[in-house]
């Protein structure tokens, strides 16, 4: 946008001091006309996959066509993920805050003509609450957003992540300026300690304590010390860190610079998985802009503090999210974990004291420095302060990204924000913490979502993936899925992990085939414990968690597989039979025509039957039948 470009060019000079930054911010804010309409299009990865780029192009073309007819020419802003991914592509019209969902390029003209020119909403693009049938106009009235508390995500969906001016106008780099001018490094560490912030990567280690230990290690060993961002998010179903890096890259960077100031680091690394191209692109742009503005590099804001960072791309190994494997990967060696008997804060990257924090943890730091550790400690619950971002996926109506205060009930996330399971039945379980976590059953739906309560329930916070399951999900199958994933992703160094995960999965395969006996459950538990106790790193030692928690809460389902030779969820192919309910079948022949085995017989307008002998249980007939006549036993 030409006008915006001019702003950047005008000020494209190094900021020499905190005053310079404030002046620039004032200048940027003055330029904004609060009444000028703005069309905000979500350019998160989810919406882009649904065609939001084309929507933006169509909107630009429609605006051009409308030309001078529009009284106030609106701007188009593209932002990071707005969170409500299942309804994408999303657009918000400001200042009214009109929320349009599932927008197609062909809607662009109507949006411009009706909403921009005449100020009227396009009814059919508005969100309709599936529970009440009510049409909702604005974002903040939608139940999905209403219950959330957006702290880390406050900028995402509001600012253009590829424009530092937007970040600065929204208050960005104020924390850095504050720290450099009014706080000592010790003050910064003290604020992080006071905040009670715990690492968002999974284990929940207190961040302040980690920084303090690093300072103690530095006292003994001297500098250099390194600060590292763990952006190697790889849990199936997790996309919190990706969203933060894509949607608010400067927040991560500012947090990292603050950490470097607190610890006296001169070099930092952002380890981001290569499967996140947009996140890498936005971080690269952010770093380039920050350097140009004198916010990164030599003599930051004229304070004499010098720090620079670089991006290291992961080459597709899940295990490189494990801290020691991440370090060996940055060092240019194969990403194999090493034993952690000496902690990373003492011997991390290149054997030096290193502070490694997750993306979301770093993004919290500017907020803590800005508003104070006590402010942060008031959010959430004691021992699990602040908010947490979760990606809500699986059998849930509102798939997307949510941020909630710690301590909120699990059911509030899944049922109120997530809108529950699609056809209104209760959920069966929620897998938290990805392949390292565990299943929490419906009976524990009121479990507070905080580090300690989830661990007590046998699961873990993990990085924040929440996979919702309903009664058509089989726990044996879920266990096999995660084990297959980890088998492939294990580094293969230690035997309990390399050999054990395969053997554990094979034992589960037997359950899925109805082979074996109840006594095999003891073997499952015993082998799981051997892997937990014996594996070298957290990938292996946490791998049996899904099996152990499902055994704890759904033991009878395992027993049904081997004793009754039934899969109650109707998933394990060797244990199910498809039949057609003669009363419900209308004889439409749809299933028979699509059956790849040609094993459905019957005349037109007469009840059909499945010849079980030839059936491969592919489930196509079940999907095809509109009359719910196909049944699974």
């Amino acid at each position: 946008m030409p006008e915006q470009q001019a702003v950047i060019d005008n000020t494209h000079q190094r900021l020499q001091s905190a005053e310079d930054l404030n002046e620039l911010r004032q200048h940027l804010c003055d330029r904004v006309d609060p009444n000028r309409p703005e069309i905000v299009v979500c350019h998160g990865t989810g919406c882009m996959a649904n065609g939001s780029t084309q929507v933006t192009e169509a909107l630009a073309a429609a605006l051009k066509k409308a030309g001078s007819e529009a009284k106030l020419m609106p701007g188009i802003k593209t932002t990071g993920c707005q969170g409500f991914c299942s309804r994408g592509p999303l657009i918000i019209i400001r200042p009214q805050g009109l929320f349009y969902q599932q927008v197609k390029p062909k809607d662009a003209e109507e949006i411009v003509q009706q909403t921009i020119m005449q100020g009227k909403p396009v009814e059919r693009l508005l969100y309709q609450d599936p529970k009440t049938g009510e049409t909702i106009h604005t974002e903040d009235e939608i139940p999905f957003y209403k219950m959330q508390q957006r702290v880390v995500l406050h900028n995402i969906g509001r600012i253009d992540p590829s424009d530092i001016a937007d970040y600065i106008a929204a208050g960005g780099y104020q924390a850095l300026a504050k720290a450099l001018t009014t706080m000592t490094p010790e003050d910064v560490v003290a604020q992080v300690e006071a905040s009670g912030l715990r690492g968002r990567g999974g284990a929940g280690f207190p961040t302040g304590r980690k920084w303090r230990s690093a300072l103690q290690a530095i006292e003994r060993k001297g500098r250099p010390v390194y600060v590292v961002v763990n952006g190697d998010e790889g849990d199936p179903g997790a996309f919190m860190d990706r969203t933060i890096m894509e949607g608010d890259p400067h927040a991560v960077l500012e947090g990292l610079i603050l950490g470097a100031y607190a610890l006296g680091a001169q070099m930092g690394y952002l380890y981001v998985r290569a499967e996140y191209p947009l996140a890498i692109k936005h971080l690269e742009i952010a770093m380039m802009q920050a350097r140009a503005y004198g916010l990164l590099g030599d003599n930051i804001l004229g304070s004499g503090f010098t720090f620079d960072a670089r991006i290291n791309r992961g080459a597709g190994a899940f295990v490189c999210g494990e801290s020691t494997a991440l370090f060996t990967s940055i060092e240019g060696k194969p990403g194999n974990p090493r034993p952690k008997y000496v902690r990373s804060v003492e011997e991390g990257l290149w054997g030096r004291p290193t502070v490694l924090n997750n993306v979301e943890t770093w993004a919290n730091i500017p907020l803590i420095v800005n508003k104070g550790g006590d402010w942060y400690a008031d959010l959430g619950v004691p021992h699990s302060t602040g908010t947490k971002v979760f990606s809500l996926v699986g059998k849930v109506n509102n798939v997307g990204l949510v941020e909630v205060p710690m301590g909120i009930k699990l059911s509030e996330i899944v049922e109120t924000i997530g809108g529950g399971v699609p056809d209104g039945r209760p959920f069966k379980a929620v897998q938290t913490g990805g392949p390292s976590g565990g299943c929490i059953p419906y009976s524990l739906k009121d479990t507070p979502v905080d580090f300690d309560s989830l661990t007590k329930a046998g699961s873990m916070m993990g990085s924040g993936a929440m996979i919702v399951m309903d009664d058509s999900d089989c726990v044996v199958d879920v266990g096999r899925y995660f084990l297959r994933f980890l088998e492939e992703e294990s580094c293969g160094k230690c035997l309990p992990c390399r050999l054990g995960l395969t053997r554990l999965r094979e034992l589960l395969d037997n359950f899925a085939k109805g082979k074996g006996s109840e006594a095999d459950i003891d073997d499952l538990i015993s082998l799981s414990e051997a892997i937990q106790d014996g594996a070298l790193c957290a990938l292996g030692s946490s791998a049996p968690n899904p099996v152990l928690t499902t055994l704890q809460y759904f033991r009878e389902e395992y027993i049904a597989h081997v004793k009754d030779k039934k899969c109650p969820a109707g998933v394990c192919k060797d244990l199910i039979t498809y039949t057609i309910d003669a009363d419900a079948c209308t004889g439409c022949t749809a299933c028979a025509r699509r059956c790849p085995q040609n094993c459905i017989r019957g005349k037109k307008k007469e009840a059909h039957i499945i010849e079980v002998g030839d059936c491969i249980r592919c489930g196509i007939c079940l999907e095809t039948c509109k009359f719910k006549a196909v049944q699974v036993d």
Partner: protein
Amino acid sequence: MITLTINDQEVKARKGWTLLEAARHHGVDIPTLCYHEAVAPSGACRLCMVELKDGDWSKLVASCIYPVADGLNVYTETPKVQNVRRWVLEMLLAACPGSEEIATLARRYGVTTTRFATKSANEACMVCGLCVRVCEEVVGLSAIATVDRGVHKRVGAPYLKPTDVCVACGSCVTICPTGAMAKIFDTVRGEPQTKLTQLQA
């Protein structure tokens, strides 16, 4: 000197020793496969796991890499230690049916059969990495490496292409605890004029 207990016996150890070194110095038996004095320990086979206890707290660690410290209470034969060892040995029996050394070790710890499907009868490599480490640390060549990851991990020349970096010193064959290296030694060097059997003769 450092004072710790091993199986409730108070023992002394030198600073810088690992638990394994301390235990072996005092004649306490701990099995190992991937450990060798000639190279840095890596903690891969997990047969040397021991349990550290302090009141209600306990934790399993690999004794070959865990450094001795004052006041540690080390136990080498707890149910948890035995559980890890038993499963690892049973899985090794299935993974390396071609290794007499592994069968002997397993028998010593009472594991004689395996419930798991066995690999091809000739397979003997358990990818402990001793060969790779000796080639890197002692010979200084890194002619061989582990290739791929997870269940696909195996030992070979880089990209599994024969290499002329190998000088046929045979260190890897000597250090290999399962006899597997002798079986693949010639493939590492492509089509050598002198085979391993001739070298050994």
